């Protein structure tokens, strides 16, 4: 395994995607790290920031299949997983796969579907397989769900329960691009850029390569001190006074995996505290349930993670 080679490939993917998705380099990096860590990503941001474009561009650059589901209140589980239909031609029932049978899935506005439908998707995300009519069908490998939700509108939404949120490896908050990036977007538009037409993007990776990256994570060395650091951070979220429900052991595992993936991103064969710290917010923010009065006072999960990181002692520090 050549980690440097894989790291360079990841960087090439980022560069290629950034050709069309301007000013969101950090988002691209986080999504790719999530993909390598075999996790799913929940993206929270207002419409119009290029979330769909990101997934489409990723599909194109990675050479992966891409599907999109627009979640609505009347969406049914079978609309996601697929259903068994009777074929008059064949004279038998046959399974028609739903959009979940893809490699990259964009679940747009996931909080607009009722809990039953959400659960169907989330179960598929966790098990990486779909069971219908007693038959379990595995999903593609790799399988990455990018779910989005709008933080502004709350009318007619079905917020994801905390237990379901835990199934997302990362929760990313997308902000507006900088002025320079926005100017570049306009310049691209003036020059004739069409978001629906991405044929000019080059495929710089492949399904096999992504799978190899995912498998190579196991070879990234993790020192005992790093494991202690991760558990210390997660434990502190449970003891935090503003948090009623802290991060779960699944969060610890997720944080460790993400740290490994980030080490791979950096071309390193080992994890350092920076890998953990730089992804702590993304891994933990959606897993913390705050005290009601803390919420009333405007304290957010990010504030709590900040506080935890301020107190957690970095291993082998010189300070």
């Amino acid at each position, binding site marked *: 395994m050549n980690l440097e080679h894989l790291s360079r490939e990841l960087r090439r993917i980022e560069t290629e995607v950034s050709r069309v998705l301007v000013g969101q380099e950090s988002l691209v990096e986080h999504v790719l790290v999530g993909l390598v860590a075999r996790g799913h990503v929940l993206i929270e941001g207002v419409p119009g920031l290029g979330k769909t474009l990101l997934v489409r561009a990723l599909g194109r650059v990675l050479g992966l299949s891409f599907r999109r589901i627009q979640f609505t209140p009347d969406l049914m589980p079978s609309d996601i997983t697929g259903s068994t239909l009777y074929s008059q031609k064949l004279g038998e029932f046959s399974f028609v796969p739903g959009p979940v049978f893809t490699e990259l899935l964009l679940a747009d506005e996931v909080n607009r579907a009722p809990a039953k439908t959400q659960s169907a998707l989330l179960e598929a995300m966790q098990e990486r397989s779909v069971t219908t009519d007693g038959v379990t069908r595995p999903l593609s490998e790799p399988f990455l769900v990018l779910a989005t939700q709008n933080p502004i509108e709350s009318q007619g939404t079905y*917020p994801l329960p905390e237990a379901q949120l835990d199934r997302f490896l990362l929760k990313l908050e997308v902000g507006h691009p900088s002025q320079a990036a926005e100017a570049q977007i306009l310049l691209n538009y003036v020059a004739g850029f069409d978001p629906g037409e991405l044929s000019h993007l080059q495929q710089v990776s492949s399904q096999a390569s992504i799978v190899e990256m995912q498998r190579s994570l196991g070879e990234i*060395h993790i*020192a005992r*001190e*790093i494991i202690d650091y991760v558990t210390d951070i997660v434990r502190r979220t449970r*003891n*935090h*006074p*503003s948090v009623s429900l802290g991060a779960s052991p699944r969060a610890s595992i997720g944080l460790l995996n993400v740290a490994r993936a980030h080490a791979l991103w950096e071309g*390193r*064969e*080992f*994890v*350092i*505290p*920076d890998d953990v*710290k*730089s992804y702590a917010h993304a891994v933990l923010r959606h897993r913390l349930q705050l005290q*009601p*009065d*803390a*919420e*009333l*006072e405007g*304290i957010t999960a990010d*504030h709590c993670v900040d*506080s935890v*990181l*301020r*107190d*957690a*002692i*970095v291993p*082998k*520090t*010189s*300070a």
Partner: protein
Amino acid sequence: MAGAARLGLVALFALVCLPSVALADPGDAPPAWQSLPPAAGSGVEHPDEAEADEPGEESGAPLDPFKVVPPASVEGSLSRVLSGPDVSFCKAEQATGRHDPLLCSLSHLSSRQRCPGLRQACSNQPVEVGPSSSSGSLQSKLAQLGNLTFWLVLAGLVVAVGLALKRVFADAEFAPADPRKRTSPSPAEAALVARHVVETDVARLWALAEESALGARFEEAVAALQGALIHALRLSGKLHVSPAQTNGDYLRALRPEPSLHGPAREVFRAVEAVQFGGAPASRELYRQLLERVQPIVARVLSLLLLCAFGFGQSGCSKSLAGDPEAGGHGLGVLTQLLREQHTTVRRRIRALNVIEPEVSAILVVGEQPSEAWAKLLEFAAGGGMLVVSQSSEELAKATSVHYSADSYTGRLQVPPGFESNQLELSAVARHALEFGTGAVAHERTFALAEKKAYVAERSYGAGNVLYFGDDEFLANASLSVGDNAFFVVSLLRRNGQVLELVGPWTGGGSSSTFASLFKAGLGTLLAQLALLAVLFGWHGGTAFGLRKDPIAVRRRAFRDHVLALGENYRRARATRFALASYGSWLIERLRDRLSPQQPIGLIDLAGRMAGRVEQPESELVLLLSEARDAQDDFATARSSPADLSTLEKLETLTVRAGGSK
């Protein structure tokens, strides 16, 4: 390199402390009993021991004192002293003779004037600046630079402390208002923090790195090198270091400085590979890191040394620039000449209550109180030699020797009977000695000014009193003329014994501790040490305890709890239920308050409330009806945020109607 670091620290200490002490102004009265030995290795041709142990001194017989000291020895010492850096009046640039009639008179009395600068200054002629003068000028400029640096550093320190305080307060403001975030750490956390004790001193880290490398513990060595780098950057103000910060945080902070960012990144990467990646730490790696870290750490140490130089210069600047003992009227030359003739000269700070037995002679400078004269005369009567150059009532009464006013400028004569009666002595005499009647064991006159005794010795008890007509005869300018120096040294030399200078500085008490410190010349030194302590404490000190904000206990209103509860209901989509439960309770409370005697319906309740809270009755009826309806349909109706709004209005209404109690 650890040796270099230690050397740097020693140099820092030397720069800070030693100049303040060793070069302190003699006028600032050094500590009591300060005794400096003769200059070592000065190349002086001292008389040998046999010569020093002359029989006349041992027996106390009145032998010719001018036969004891070789004139060449005194001449050599005098040349050295007058050309040295500590004698300012002899330097052309610093000579102020033209404004001092005494010095100018002396400069013309003899052809053997050893201070040409003084004579030129008196004759108002242009002066050639020699190497020693330029050296003095350089020292003076250095002193000014030192003073300037000192005040700049002091001002910078004050500003830095102000900024640090501001940052502390700013941090306090930035911290989230949640007081629960600052609760005391749990015992486990406290234990973890207590275990987390790391070295933060750059020099010690550097020494640790070298020691570990010598012991082939390269993992520890590279970690110590990284620590030295981080704390060197902290000392230079580039980094804010805390246990919760990673190397990545430090690199982000160093981004604006590419010259530091690059080397630091390489060091961090290499050390992380050892610490977290299991890479072996080798001597080669240690050497590579050393090359990266060394320039940065050296730069910081240089900065500290520069600061120390500023401090040190401030301590010695006064000595370099304006030492009164180095002027024409000072006693610096006499002191040094006597020291070179094996005589220990020291200033007496302590009172004269007990005079130590090793003191064989006391030179009195200036006026003394009567109690002091009593002790001095007691000393002389006990066998010591008292040297006086000024009249005093007590002295005249005890010895019958008076100082009469005189005015004579010119050569002094050595009376017959001395082998060296051809000495060329010159003085600006203002007094002459008059001896009263009375039996004395012996009496000798060593110099005459126009046939009047000018320098004489008279026995007093078991000792002697040596009289000089004027104190100026012993001054630096006088000793630079003719054979005055040889004459005076011959009379005052105490081979291997102690001569004390008693003057205004003797027995002077201080009104306070601070005055005492400053009087002893320690004020500047202590101020420097205090500033350094503050500096080190601020940069590298270890906190005595965990800093934590006081826990602000804020009483939360019941209304807040209700709102929080409502928020929970909203998230559970059960706001209708909340309205039904809490609304009915509030309606009952309103009924109790407005109609305690008998139950009333909602219409009547709304009417009574309208009169009390001055709101339209129709609105109140709608509000109460909505709350009442929730009791019936909370199981079937869909929850909506409007329920909480209704509940809030009802609660506000209850408060305005007098509260729920």
